[in-house]
């Protein structure tokens, strides 16, 4: 199997590594802070991150240094950093591993980001179910505070950064950055209408950066080894560095694999994840979490980088790769994801709130073999009328499973509906029944 250098998972892959402060330091941890704080001007840190080509690992893939550059330069009041640890995109389970196995790597990234943007407070917004990760982070923050890496006057540099863990309470939408801010302010997690963007009006209306856990965990490495080194990994210039791909579904060895961006799906599935779990061949896969449209075996040589996956008609998203074997009903799979989106719609805007309910009802009746041919048109129309017409990107995400499966497996929808129709011929329902 091709070997690739590990960056983010390197420490924890060492047998016996427990993620304590002492172990992290022994592995070279907190050197980036020593080399950077008070020695390199914050603006130069931002420039270095921009040069590295690092793009957000939370889903949207926005260039991190560019995002930081949007903060107002001359603003004197407080600024905030929020670490997005909501990890709720079905198919994604990497941030949990980063936090539970090497929490100081995440904390060092947070401190560096705070320094670059001039924030003195950072909140780690972690999904409520991840109690163990929250406990481990709290303990790590205590260690880092005692060692002088967090708090007032860090290592005598005059830099102040405090870090707090804030638990969410069960709502997928709070991973969307403005919903996260609302939730952190103690309100319902309803996404805000943008603009204004968090860079100018974020937490408590102050300039704010929201970054994903994995994005932040890359920062210590970029600062110690240099932006040029980072920019040489992966598929430069647009997709640099590694990704932690979360492989789930019908493979022999599901799990997290850190690989340079640009590896093919084929290499990921057949070399690293051990191939299919049985002799049934691959039928479909999702390349980037539940919000990414399904792809087919014809796409196995697509490179897993932002541009290539987008060109193939899907998205790299959160890095969650779900594999499905021959025999899996695609209509059923799309329904499972649709049930998720229906449950998680926050209800703020009507195309998503009403649309998700209609979509799920139609999908349920097709799967229950009570569908009609017109349903296919209705599904397509609904999808078109939701995507791009909502307050937040959830609207685009929720139509992905149906649009993707309709594109490649329309025949499966048709077969289910035909069965329904022929059943009705033999046993006609009384007029007005069901439906």
């Amino acid at each position, binding site marked *: 199997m091709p070997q690739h250098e590990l960056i983010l998972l390197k420490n924890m892959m*060492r047998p016996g590594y427990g993620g304590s402060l002492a172990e992290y330091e022994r592995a070279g941890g907190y050197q980036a802070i020593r080399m950077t704080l008070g020695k390199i001007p914050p603006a130069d840190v931002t420039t270095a991150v921009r040069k590295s080509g690092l793009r957000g690992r939370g889903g949207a893939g926005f260039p991190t240094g560019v995002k930081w550059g949007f903060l107002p330069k001359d603003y004197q009041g407080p600024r905030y950093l929020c670490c997005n640890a909501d990890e709720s995109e*079905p198919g994604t389970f990497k941030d949990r591993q980063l936090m539970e196995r090497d929490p100081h790597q995440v904390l060092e990234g947070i401190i560096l980001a705070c320094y670059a943007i001039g924030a003195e407070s950072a909140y780690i917004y972690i999904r409520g179910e*991840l*109690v*163990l990760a929250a406990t481990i982070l709290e303990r790590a923050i205590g260690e880092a505070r005692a060692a002088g890496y967090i708090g007032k006057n860090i290592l005598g540099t005059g830099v102040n950064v405090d870090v707090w863990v804030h638990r969410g*309470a069960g709502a997928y939408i709070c991973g969307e950055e403005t919903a996260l801010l609302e939730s952190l302010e*103690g309100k319902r997690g309803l996404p805000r209408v943008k603009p204004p963007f968090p860079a100018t009006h974020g937490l408590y209306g102050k300039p704010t950066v929201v970054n994903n856990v994995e994005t932040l965990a890359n920062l210590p490495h970029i600062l110690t080894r240099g932006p040029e080194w980072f920019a040489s990994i992966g598929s430069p210039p647009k997709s640099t560095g590694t990704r932690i791909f979360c492989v789930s579904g019908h493979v022999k060895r599901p799990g997290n694999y850190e690989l340079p961006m640009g590896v093919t799906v084929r290499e990921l599935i057949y070399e690293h994840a051990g191939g299919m779990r049985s002799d049934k061949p691959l039928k479909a896969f999702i390349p980037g979490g539940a919000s990414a449209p399904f792809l087919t075996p014809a796409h196995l040589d697509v490179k897993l980088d932002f541009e290539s996956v987008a060109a193939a008609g899907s998205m790299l998203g959160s890095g969650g790769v*779900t594999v499905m074997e021959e025999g899996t009903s695609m209509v059923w*799979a799309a329904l*499972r994801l649709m049930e998720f989106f229906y449950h998680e719609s926050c209800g703020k805007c009507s195309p998503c709130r009403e649309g998700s309910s209609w979509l799920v009802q139609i999908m349920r009746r097709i799967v229950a073999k009570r569908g009609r041919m017109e349903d296919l048109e209705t599904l397509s129309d609904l999808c078109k009328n939701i995507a791009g017409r909502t307050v937040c990107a959830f609207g685009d995400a929720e139509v992905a499973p149906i649009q993707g499966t309709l594109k490649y497996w329309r025949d499966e929808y048709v077969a289910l509906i035909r069965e329904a129709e022929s059943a009705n011929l033999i046993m006609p329902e009384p007029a007005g029944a069901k439906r």
Partner: protein
Amino acid sequence: MTLSEKYRDEIAAILARYPVKRSALIPLLYLAQREQGYVTEEAMVEIARILGLTPPQVYETVTFYTLFNLKPVGKFHIQICKSLMCALVGSDTVIEWINAKLGIGPGETTPDGLFTLSLVECLASCGTGPMMQINEDYYERLTEEKVDRILADLRSTGSSSLKSGPFMWPEPMKT
């Protein structure tokens, strides 16, 4: 005893983390739930008073979040992930096992008040499914035998050593 009397220091520490009081709402609701297993009306009124909010403001927020129980649940709250990735590897079967072993379906509690079953969406362990969370602990890569042992452990000692530790999958290979 009220929450403010019992947890004076903890509440003060929570409030100190935020420049705006309302941010302490979810943390205080967690405190109330830890105390009684669910969030009572009295707790909501008291939290409103602590934060300078109206009770409806607290109620409107608490109802948005699925992790807060507004009525009592069983001592062990079993939450099985039913999202696609777990469903591909058998989560529906786990639901059947629980149903057969405890005689409860989704949303139901055993008559002895020990177990409540809920079906939930993805819990960030899709590579180690099927899985369930019971109270604060994760249980992953479930088999029927494992489920039996977990339930027996919980009944007899209140906890089970089969719960997940710090997560990493696959585990590092010995070289």
